[in-house]
């Protein structure tokens, strides 16, 4: 199974956000990190792949052109969960993860549903919040709930838009570890938008660098991170060293 994204174009009025965005087919079981500065089009690209906005170009999953699917069928194969949500509803964490699991079908909640939600909450380490109202959550907890909502769905492609932006260091590592394991175990295709290049280097199998809606570089993290495009794109000096566990460490320095 592969996900091919080819020549996507999308504009808000006169402002072009995606300018022929495309990249080499993404493989199953792999986690790809989508990196790029603010406003480089990461969220728009995710929405275009999920079909939440209409972009020109092709998105092909295996041999299926996703444009031929109904919006609902497309969203059940490509899971994109916005990281934040309106939290003024009287709903508990359990309720909202159950909602994602039921995927708008059937009224009845079976004991398999209940067990599945409980497992998802435990795996996401938010079991203690199961009966808390979503209005009581911190930003980081809300993100963990959103990831649990995504992972409880049985999809082929999972798109995570900055899932760690509100998390502390420990939870960032755990969250990305959980996502990476889930993608590998399900043999699904995972893409995660990240700002932190060190996290990208540590967890991703593959990197895609996006700037102003165009893919500037893609490939294995140790190759892509060495490229001059990275430093140019972010407007910083970058040095890569090897950490104590043979991992890549990205050091970034501002020009001024």
């Amino acid at each position: 199974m592969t996900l091919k994204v080819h020549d996507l174009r999308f504009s808000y009025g006169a402002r072009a956000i995606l300018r022929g965005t495309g990249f080499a087919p993404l493989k199953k079981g792999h986690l790809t990190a989508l990196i790029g500065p603010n406003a480089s089009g990461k969220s728009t690209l995710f929405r275009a792949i999920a079909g939440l906005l209409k972009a020109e170009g092709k998105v092909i999953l295996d041999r299926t052109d996703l444009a031929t699917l109904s919006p609902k069928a497309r969203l059940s194969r490509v899971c994109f969960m916005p990281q934040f949500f309106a939290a003024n509803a009287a709903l508990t964490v359990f309720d909202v993860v159950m909602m994602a699991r039921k995927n708008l079908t059937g009224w009845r909640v079976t004991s398999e549903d209940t067990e599945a939600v409980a497992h998802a909450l435990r795996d996401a380490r938010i079991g203690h919040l199961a009966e808390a109202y979503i209005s009581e959550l911190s930003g980081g907890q809300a993100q963990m709930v959103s990831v649990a909502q995504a992972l409880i769905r049985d999809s082929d492609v999972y798109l995570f838009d900055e899932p760690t932006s509100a998390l502390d260091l420990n939870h960032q590592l755990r969250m990305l570890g959980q996502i990476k394991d889930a993608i590998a175990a399900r043999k699904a295709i995972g893409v995660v938008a990240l700002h932190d290049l060190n996290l990208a280097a540590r967890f991703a199998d593959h990197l895609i660098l996006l700037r102003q809606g165009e893919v500037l570089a893609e490939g294995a993290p140790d190759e892509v991170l060495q490229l001059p495009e990275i430093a140019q794109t972010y407007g910083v000096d970058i040095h890569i060293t090897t950490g104590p566990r043979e991992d890549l460490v990205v050091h970034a320095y501002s020009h001024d």
Partner: protein
Amino acid sequence: MTEISNAPTVDAIVRGYRKRAMWRIALVAAAALMLFVTIVLDVITGPADLDFWRVAEVILNPSVATAKEEVIVWDLRLPVAMMAVVVGAMLGVSGAELQTILNNPLAEPFTLGLSAAASFGAAVAIVLGWSVLPGVGALFVTVNAFVFAMGASLLLFLVTRLRGANPETMILMGIAMMFTFNALLALLQYGASELQLAQLIFWQLGSLSRATWPKVAICVVILAVVLPYFLGRSWALTALRMGEDKAAALGVNVNALRLMVLAGVSLLAAVAVSFVGAIAFVGLVAPHIARMIVGEDQRGFLTLSAVAGALILSGTSILSKAITPGVVYPIGMITSLIGVPFFVSLILGQRKRHWQ
């Protein structure tokens, strides 16, 4: 964030949820039981001196009843009691779904100008003697109110379709209609005779005394069509409360859902208002009561909103007869008087404020 060394097990999480689910069912059942009690009380209260056992006899075995008893129980009290229940449920459901699709805690059929339109329709009938549909006979006040309320909804529906179903447009458009119809109503009131004015005010205050079995049947049929539709969309409506973005990501067609729900709510509210008059409080408060008690999983929320609306109006019906023996007060006045203390106590007592 709390550390997770003492994280609950899967079993504990499941138990926690099951406990709440059972509790939720128990609360809805308790409310339904209370509703049954109020219906019984409603049927046995009234100026004619009939005790509980006699009323039960007349209901279970109409052949033992005198002609007078039969009229009192079967033609007067039972239709009124049933009308209170059904209209209350209709208003509760309308308010619940309007608050959901408009993402606004103050939304109810009246915020969108539906009752103003209905009142104007009634005024056209009472003051000008015009009937918008010919051949409806004595029902022309009701029919006018219904036609105007549906017309207002249709206008709102069309504007929403053309301009996109965002809550702001819908609410502003509704408020614009409310003011327009209120102004037109004032114009008619200004030129009305004292008798007509009295009639109009009486209509607006709301009354269950106009209830008949055919009206009850119409309400039941409409509720039986619209409520299952809403219940069938439970997950989509629940998802909408997490924001449009999230709902869309889960596969909800947000615009289509808003339009369909608006259509259903309009029908419920227009029928309710044209049959019993402008009863504002129920549609606003019943959903809040339901939300505070069972939360906003629509499966429980919608059901309890309906039951709570029915309870408020049924209680109102009893009280309207009980305050001064022999006098039936307009229910529009009473709903607020009995609903508000309960509502305020819930607001003060609840552990978490939503809508912040």
